[in-house]
Each structure stands twice: as C-alpha cells, then as structure tokens.
C-alpha cells in the first residue's frame, strides 16, 4: 500500500503532466491546423465557390469546441480535490495583503459562513455538465491579453520567488489600465496582493500552475472596481480587498471555471510564444 507521501508525489506528477503536456499537445494539434492555413484557404475558396464554406467552418468550430471541452473536463477532474483547500486560503491571502490581518480575518469569517454552500457546489458531480454549458454560453467575458497570460505562465515556471513575482507584477499591470483615477490609485495594492497570491500558490508544486489565474483575477477586479467607480461609489482599500478576495474565490470556486481559465491562459500564452510568420517560413524552408 502506498503511504501518504508517495500518493502525494504521484498526484503532483499526474497533475503537472496533465496540465503541461496534455494541454500543450492539444494546442500543438491546433497549430498544425494553423500551419495548413494556406491549403485550408485554397480548400475554403473552393468550398465557398460551391456554397459549402459555412458548413465547413461550423464543423471545424464544433470539433475545436469538443476537443477543448474534453481538455477542460480532464483538468477539472484533477482540480476538484485541490480547490476546496486552496480557494479559502487564496482569498484570505488577498484580503490580508490589501486590508491587513483584520480584513483577512473578516474575509475568512465570511468564507467560513458560506463554506457549506461551497462544499456542496464542488461536491456535486452532476453540477459539471450544467456548469460546462453555462461556461460556454458565457462568452461575453473579456479575455485577458496574450502578453499577460504569457507572463503569468513564466511566473508559474520561474525558478525563484523573486523572479516569479517580477513576472506577475508585469502581468497584473498589463491588464490594469483604467480611466478611473480612484481605481488607478489602488493598482499598487492589487499588485501587492497578486504577489502574495502568487507566493502562496507557488509554495506547493501541486498548486503552482494555478498562478495562471492571477491576471484573470486582476482583470475582473479592475472591471468590478471600474463599475463601482462609475456609479460614484467610493473605492477604498477595504472595498478593493473585498472585491479582489471574492474574485479570487470565484476564480477558484468551481473546477470547471478554473480549468477554463487555465486552458485559455495556456492557449493565449502559446500563441504569444509562437515564432513570427517570417521566422516560421524561414524554419520551414530550412534556412
């Protein structure tokens, strides 16, 4: 029988492999399709001429969605046992970083009160399918940009804490441009909280890939704060702490939502890290 530590190592390896290789392979497959773009255009032109273009693209889109959905489902199943432990801790870290220990404790209390509901939601296997459909319908959520995702990916893989936090600082400010002066004043607090969150998530190899959620948390926090500022509500430090802690918890609340953020992040970062078109052409011609 395996002891606790061995099981833990096995689990870590499984999670890392699932995330790093399975998702990467998925996008490599997509890149291959992109590499055949020229041929695809020729075929597409012929299909359009025959009035079949629309059907073809619909089929491709459907295929891509299915593959993506499968990846998310597999990732979600591995995230499921981790998230109930990580989500409250991450939210408390954010609350403490911005509002101090008292605010962190208050947020902790708030989370404890809603713990039953959270456990219930994550524990329900049947919740998966419905949630999955909901997630795919919820396409209006703006995505974080590729550079921020690439920087967050670098933070997850960085060799030391300081370098990781430098990457995450850059990723967070990348998604933070705002027209509201009140929100702008809070950017350093959000950077500080993001650094703490990164540190907390990087602490354990199993939770390290979750660093990729940080730009999404920062972006959603900024959007909520912008809305509040537009309504004339004050943007104080406790408000920022509360909003960012709740966005952190939301990002880690359900395995499907988290898996979707991670997969989208990897996809965006992959695109960012791809060589430019002339470089690809050069490589193909063997020069």
């Amino acid at each position, binding site marked *: 029988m395996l002891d*606790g*530590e061995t099981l*833990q190592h096995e689990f870590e390896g499984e999670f890392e492999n699932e995330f790093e290789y399975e998702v990467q392979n998925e996008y490599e497959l997509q890149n291959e399709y992109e590499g055949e773009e020229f041929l695809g255009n020729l075929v597409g032109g012929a299909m359009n001429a025959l009035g079949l273009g629309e059907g073809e693209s619909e089929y491709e889109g459907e295929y891509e969605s299915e593959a993506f959905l499968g990846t998310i489902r597999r990732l979600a199943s591995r995230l499921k046992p981790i998230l109930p*432990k*990580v989500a409250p*801790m991450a939210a*408390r*870290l954010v609350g*403490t*970083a911005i509002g*101090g*220990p008292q605010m*962190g404790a208050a947020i902790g209390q708030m989370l404890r009160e809603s713990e039953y509901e959270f456990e219930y939601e994550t524990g329900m296997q049947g919740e998966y399918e419905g949630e999955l459909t909901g997630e795919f319908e919820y396409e209006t959520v703006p995505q974080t940009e590729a*550079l921020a995702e*690439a*920087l967050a990916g*670098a933070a997850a893989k960085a*060799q*030391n*804490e*300081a*370098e*990781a*936090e*430098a*990457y*995450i*600082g*850059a*990723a*967070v*400010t*990348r998604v933070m*441009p705002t027209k509201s002066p009140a929100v*702008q*004043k809070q*950017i*350093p*607090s959000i*950077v*500080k909280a*993001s*650094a*703490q969150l*990164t*540190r*907390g998530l*990087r*602490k*354990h190899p*199993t939770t390290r890939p979750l660093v990729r959620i940080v730009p999404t948390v920062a972006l959603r926090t900024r959007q909520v704060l912008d809305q509040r500022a537009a309504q004339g509500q004050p943007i104080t430090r406790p408000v920022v702490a509360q909003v960012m802690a709740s966005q952190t918890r939301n990002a880690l609340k359900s395995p499907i939502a988290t898996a979707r953020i991670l997969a989208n992040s990897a996809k965006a970062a992959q695109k960012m890290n791809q060589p430019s078109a002339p470089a690809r052409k050069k490589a193909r011609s063997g020069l």
Partner: protein
Amino acid sequence: MMYQQELETLDRELASEFEVGMNETDREFEYEYESEEFLPLLAPILKAAAPMAIQAIGGLFRRRRRRPQREFEMEFETPLNEFELEGEYEGDPFIGNLLRGLSGAFGGDGEFEYEFEQQPEAMPEFESTAANEYEVMAEHLAHMAAQSQSEAEAEAFIGALIPTVARGLGAAAPALNRIAPRLIRPLSQAGQALFRNRRTRPLLRTFPRIVQSTMSSLAPRARSGQPIDDRTAARAVASNMARVLGSPQRTAAILRRSRRVHGRRCSACGSGKRLSCSVNF
C-alpha cells in the same frame, strides 16, 4: 495529510509576515542621496552598488545554481564591504567591458563603452520636464519597491513598472510589448542585488528611468525588424544602468526628480514625512 498542513502553516506564516511593520531604518537613506551636499556619501555607495547590480545581470549568462524556493524566509543584510567584486567577471564580454569601465570611472581614469547609443541627456532639462500619469505611477511603484518588506515583493513592483513605463512611451508601445518581457529577468537580477542592503535600496527609485531609457534604445531596433533576444535586452539594461549608477550627479538628479514627481501625488512624500507612502498615495 502533509499537503493540507503545509497550506495551513503557509497561511499563518504569510499573515504573521504582514504584521511585522517596515523598519524605520529602511527609509533612513532615502532623503540623503538626493541633495548635492550628500554626493560624497553617494559616490562610495555607487562604487560598490553599480558593479554589483551589473554583475548580477551578467550572472544570467553563466551557469546558475538552483536557488531555494523559500527565499523570503531568508532575507538578509549584506554589508557594503562585501560588495567588492570577487575576481574577474567571466561571462558576457560586453558586461565584462562595462564592469571594467565602471571601476575605471570610479577610480578616475576609465570610460564606459555603450553599445546602445542614445541622444545626449541634458540633466537640467530632464529635471524640469513635466511628468505624465504613467510616469507618476511608475515612480510610485519604484517607491513601493524600495520600501517593500521582502525581496520578492520588491520584484513584483519592479515587474509592474515595466508595462507602466511602456504605456507612457506612447507611439513606441506596440514594439515595446515584445521587448518588455525580455527586460524582466535582468531588472529582477539587478533589483535583488540592490534590495539586499538597506543602503542601496533607495537606488531602486532610479529603475523607472533605467527602464525608460532601455526601452527607448531598443524600440528602434525592434521597429527596424532586428531580433531582440535575451542577451540584447540584458546588455541594454546593463548599459543604461551603468550610465545612471556610474555617475553620482546623474543618480542624485534622477532621485530628486523621482521625489518631486511622486511627491505631488503622495501626501507623505510631499510633506517630507517619513511615513509609508503606500497608504497616502
């Protein structure tokens, strides 16, 4: 289970870390380096700090040992006399030349060799130029880096100022998106070296200027289609760092401007009170 226990203890550790306030002595040197009368004090600091920061960037081109993960638990103070370079730098030849030029400059004879040519910089004009909102934010982030409680947190603020400075450069920003990620590692290395001693921490406030001049010097290369790899970016950072930290007058002028620009927004810095500006910005 080990995993759960570790997460719980992590939570407690980080909470207790935040309860420890910032040491007053960390800000002791902030004001002294800006005044002309303190230039004799600044020169010996720079003589040790400038080569140290540039050598740290040069370390990117050597085989590095894997560093422990829990660095924030091992924050330490390095006495300035330990900054002296130990032996010759054997890595990137450009960094080696830069280090020799620096030691010559502080000794009185040598000159720097710059790979990245820039327009001559007139300090009086630079000091009186109006600051845009991105510059104010960059200055604030640099202040936060200098006042951080841990090395890793300081790095977060240094990383954060890169996109901020890039936005402030306006038309060049699209090309800079490709450059910015390459600057993080060299700046992070130099930042770590300067943060480790409380006397050199205020020098982190020169980073917005260093980042700005580095991006300005690399942007034409990026626009003309020349590749910008990690080595090119690190050399550009090291070159601009030598330009700034190699001259006490230039460093003092940058620190003065930093204080003035930031002080307009930050009530603590504007009033000259030694308070944490993070709560007053």
